[in-house]
């Protein structure tokens, strides 16, 4: 099919869940008993979206874009290897140099901005030129142009001066791949949820909510509402993926957030669920604050939110996107701040001198636009780190990782969706989408954050006993791996991990859901030996565990430059293997720890196990090529390789920082050595788990726990992050707010009370003098006189007929007499 079909198909896939959401929103209650039809509608909508997505991939994208082997980038020469392996040497001296450099810069700028900046600029230009020359000597790859993409405006919301808000799309291979992944996993989750949520089809008695009367809460089932939120969730996620500009990403980003809020808090009556939902929402707001700053930095300097160029029918660029502005062709697709960025940036760094700069030396400002200048680079760093802050919140990276494990309070299908295809994937996806804008310094931040996250989360997972929490921490850890890979320049590796991780993590969560469904508990200390009772679940979960370990050690060998960044993934592989198999052994192997629960355990219905098997197949197969072709995820993703990622990049602010190109970091010499190291540690982890939890070999968990009790309690309490945040943020906020509350109660209230008393006194005076005396007095007097007159007139009304007649007669006569007197006068 023609590529013009691509936007249509994907828009159809995007909007179908919205239609399903609207339908269920209005008619959900009336779709069968407790909205049974809602599940059917939502599921068919997402399956339709999946069909559209896969048609777009196989029917439109692949026929029009021939796949090439990703490995064609990398036939590294000896020299190339040499360069990449030597790169870390520079990093050792990095930390001292940063401070030194910054200090130097500020001093210079304070004394003589113009002179200092130009010297700095010239130095930086020369330095980079020499580095680039050196790279070229080493047979550096030519930098790659922008990948093939389709971008256009669908609808213009409004134009405000320079700011144009529109609904637009940006479709490249990554978009198509994400659409397929999200729709496929969401379909599996929908099918699974039909089985898992059947409790909600009738009045549901919540075992975890006790009313004040001591009874369990019984409420009407909310089956239809669950599917309603699922549909909205899918719609929002598709929106994030297809969005063609930053503003639209932000809108759908927040929609994803609110959907996760609804779904985590699905059992809203449970206190833990509602607080977990609040926590997820609030923690994400913290990240989104940074994202807003990043967006403002980009927009104020670039004047556009759009990602890609929008071309008219003749192929001329109508509207330039931020990617091509920042990585223009004349710069050989290297990231350079634009003139606007240098200008904006100088305003911050130069401060008051800026006015003189502009007024006095317009020519000098024009000269500043030599695509250099550290000022613009700082702004670029702010933008990159700001956007990454949003991703830290969504993808649960350190230090905002605390919400994800609590999000386990939602129903398990939600966990499967949140942890694989939607919520947390959005953050990693955005880093991937934004990759061309991220400067090397921002990438370093990404890498370190990812590295810290993967270690912290993996260690916490060792001691957790809630089956879903182990998986949750494993997700956080895996997301750390993805961020690490992206931060080290491994764009394809990071995105590949995102997609494969989605498959096996949703598989693992659905398996855990199946176990929970079978034994009615989350606690692994009450499971054991379930392999015999639920074989399908057990072996599909084993597939998931193996897949996650494989990922972990293939990432251990991903990239290694810095001591911490090198050894953390390798250590992570060890821990990952350990806790995943600890989970599997505790749940499925050995003897039952709770005979009662074991006796009642049963395999889940087919509507739940079928998605498990499907996902297990995908988890195993998604990394491989389709036999006989070179069609695989890596090659597909390579088609979306962001502009300018094939060349080694050097930091502007940290000149010694080197982000190697992806093929360099895959150089066999590095990859094999690190891969073997990671594989052996992973195997060691697996062995250790087997020793402790399967073979009774003298290493008993309880004894180990006692021996390492400080370590255990440290990990058990999740490194005391919650307590730390309680201490750092919550308590001071409470203290501050109680101070403010005191001020409010004592000072402001007393002022207001004083004012009120004065007003009251004034009105008292008015009341006594004016109202009571004057107004009431006159009205009362009038009333009294009327009353007296009435009393007096009453006497005439005697009721005696004869008297009345006499009155009439006498009255008439008197009238005549009076008239005669008047007439006589």
């Amino acid at each position, binding site marked *: 099919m023609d590529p013009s079909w691509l936007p249509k198909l994907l828009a159809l896939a995007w909007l179908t869940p919205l239609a399903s959401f609207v339908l269920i929103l209005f008619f959900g209650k009336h779709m069968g008993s407790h909205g049974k039809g809602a599940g059917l509608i939502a599921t068919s909508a997402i399956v339709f979206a999946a069909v559209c997505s896969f048609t777009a991939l196989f029917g439109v994208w692949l026929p029009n874009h021939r796949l090439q082997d990703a490995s064609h980038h990398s036939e590294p020469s000896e020299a190339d290897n040499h360069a990449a392996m030597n790169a870390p040497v520079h990093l050792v001296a990095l930390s001292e140099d940063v401070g030194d450099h910054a200090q130097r810069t500020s001093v210079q700028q304070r004394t003589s901005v113009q002179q200092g900046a130009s010297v700095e600029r010239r130095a930086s230009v020369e330095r980079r030129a020499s580095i680039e020359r050196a790279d070229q000597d080493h047979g550096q790859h030519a930098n790659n142009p922008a990948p093939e993409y389709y971008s256009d405006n669908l609808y213009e919301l409004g134009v405000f001066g320079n700011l144009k808000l529109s609904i637009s799309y940006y479709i490249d291979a990554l978009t198509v791949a994400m659409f397929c992944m999200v729709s496929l996993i969401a379909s599996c989750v929908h099918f699974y949820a039909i089985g898992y949520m059947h409790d909600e089809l009738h009045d549901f008695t919540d075992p975890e909510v006790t009313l004040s009367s001591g009874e369990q809460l019984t409420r009407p089932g909310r089956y239809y509402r669950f599917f309603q939120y699922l549909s909205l969730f899918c719609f929002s996620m598709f929106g994030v993926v297809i969005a063609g500009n930053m503003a639209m990403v932000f809108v759908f980003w927040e929609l994803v957030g609110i959907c996760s809020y609804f779904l985590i808090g699905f059992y809203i009556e449970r206190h833990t669920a509602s607080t977990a939902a609040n926590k997820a929402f609030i923690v994400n707001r913290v990240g989104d604050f940074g994202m807003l700053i990043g967006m403002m930095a980009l927009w104020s300097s670039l004047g556009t939110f759009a990602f890609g160029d929008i071309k008219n029918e003749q192929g001329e660029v109508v509207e330039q996107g931020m990617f091509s502005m920042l990585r223009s062709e004349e710069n050989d697709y290297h990231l350079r701040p634009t003139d606007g960025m240098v200008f904006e940036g100088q305003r911050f760094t130069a401060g008051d001198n800026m006015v003189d700069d502009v007024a006095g030396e317009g020519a000098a400002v024009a000269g500043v636009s030599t695509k250099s200048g550290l000022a613009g680079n700082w702004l670029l760093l702010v933008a990159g780190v700001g956007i990454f802050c949003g991703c830290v919140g969504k993808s649960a990276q350190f230090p905002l990782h605390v919400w994800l494990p609590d999000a386990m309070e939602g129903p398990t299908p939600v966990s499967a969706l949140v942890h694989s295809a939607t919520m947390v994937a959005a953050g990693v996806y955005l880093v991937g989408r934004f990759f061309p804008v991220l400067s090397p310094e921002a990438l370093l931040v990404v890498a370190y954050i990812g590295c810290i996250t993967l270690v912290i989360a993996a260690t916490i997972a060792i001691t957790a006993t809630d089956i879903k929490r182990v998986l949750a921490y494993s997700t956080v850890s895996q997301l750390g791996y993805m961020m690490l890979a992206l931060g080290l320049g491994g764009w394809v590796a990071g995105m590949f991990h995102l997609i494969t991780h989605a498959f096996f993590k949703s598989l693992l969560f659905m398996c855990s859901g199946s176990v929970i469904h079978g034994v009615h508990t989350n606690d692994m200390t009450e499971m054991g030996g379930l392999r015999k009772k639920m074989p399908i679940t057990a072996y599909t979960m084993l597939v998931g565990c193996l897949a996650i370990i494989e990922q972990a050690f293939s990432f251990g060998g991903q990239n290694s430059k810095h001591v911490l960044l090198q050894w953390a993934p390798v250590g992570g592989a060890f821990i990952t293997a350990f806790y995943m198999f600890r989970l599997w052994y505790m749940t499925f192997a050995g003897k039952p720890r709770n005979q009662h629960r074991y006796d009642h355990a049963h395999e889940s219905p087919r509507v739940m196990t079928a998605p498990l098997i499907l996902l297990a197949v995908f988890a195993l197969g998604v990394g491989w090529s389709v036999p006989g072709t070179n069609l695989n995820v890596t090659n597909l993703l390579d088609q979306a390789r962001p502009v300018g990622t094939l060349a080694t990049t050097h930091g502007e602010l940290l000149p010694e920082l080197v982000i190697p190109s992806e093929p360099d970091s895959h150089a066999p010499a590095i990859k094999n050595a690190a891969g073997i190291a990671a594989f052996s540690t992973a195997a060691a982890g697996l062995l250790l788990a087997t020793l402790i939890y399967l073979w009774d070999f003298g290493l008993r968990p309880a004894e180990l726990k006692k021996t390492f009790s400080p370590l255990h309690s440290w990990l058990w309490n999740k490194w005391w992050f919650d307590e730390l945040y309680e201490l750092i943020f919550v308590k001071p906020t409470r203290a501050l707010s109680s101070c403010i509350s005191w001020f409010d109660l004592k000072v402001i209230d007393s002022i207001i009370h004083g004012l009120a008393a004065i007003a009251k006194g004034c009105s008292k005076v008015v009341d006594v003098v004016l109202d009571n005396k004057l107004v009431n007095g006159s009205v009362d007097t009038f009333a009294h006189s009327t009353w007296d007159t009435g009393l007096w*007139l009453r006497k005439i*009304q005697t*009721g*005696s*007929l*004869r008297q009345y*007649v006499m009155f009439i*007669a006498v009255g008439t006569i008197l009238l005549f007499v009076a008239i005669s007197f008047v007439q006589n006068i």
Partner: protein
Amino acid sequence: MFNPIATNSLLANLLTEPVGASHYVVVGAFMFTCGVLCMATKRNALGVLMGIEMVLNGANLNFIAFGSRYLRNDANSLGLDGQLISLFVIVLAAAEAAVALAIVLNFYNNTNSIDVDRADQLRG
């Protein structure tokens, strides 16, 4: 001031003059006065009703007298307007008597008496 000569002359005039409107007027005034006195003095409700009839008929007499063409010098008119009005009055009197008798009957049913002095429940 009471002037016997003037009184005499009035009475004399009446007695000596041929019958004219003023004779009727005197009779009507007498009947009217009798009726009013009857209403003012009788305690019997039927007596009061009779007094009313007397008042009405005294007035009728005036209408007829002033309307009659024999009693005025105007010979051209048909001279029936006074009679017509008095016929109206008679009809009204009949209707009024019917209503009044109904009231009296009810009053009697309630109080076992037709003494109008006892009909003073609505006094102030």
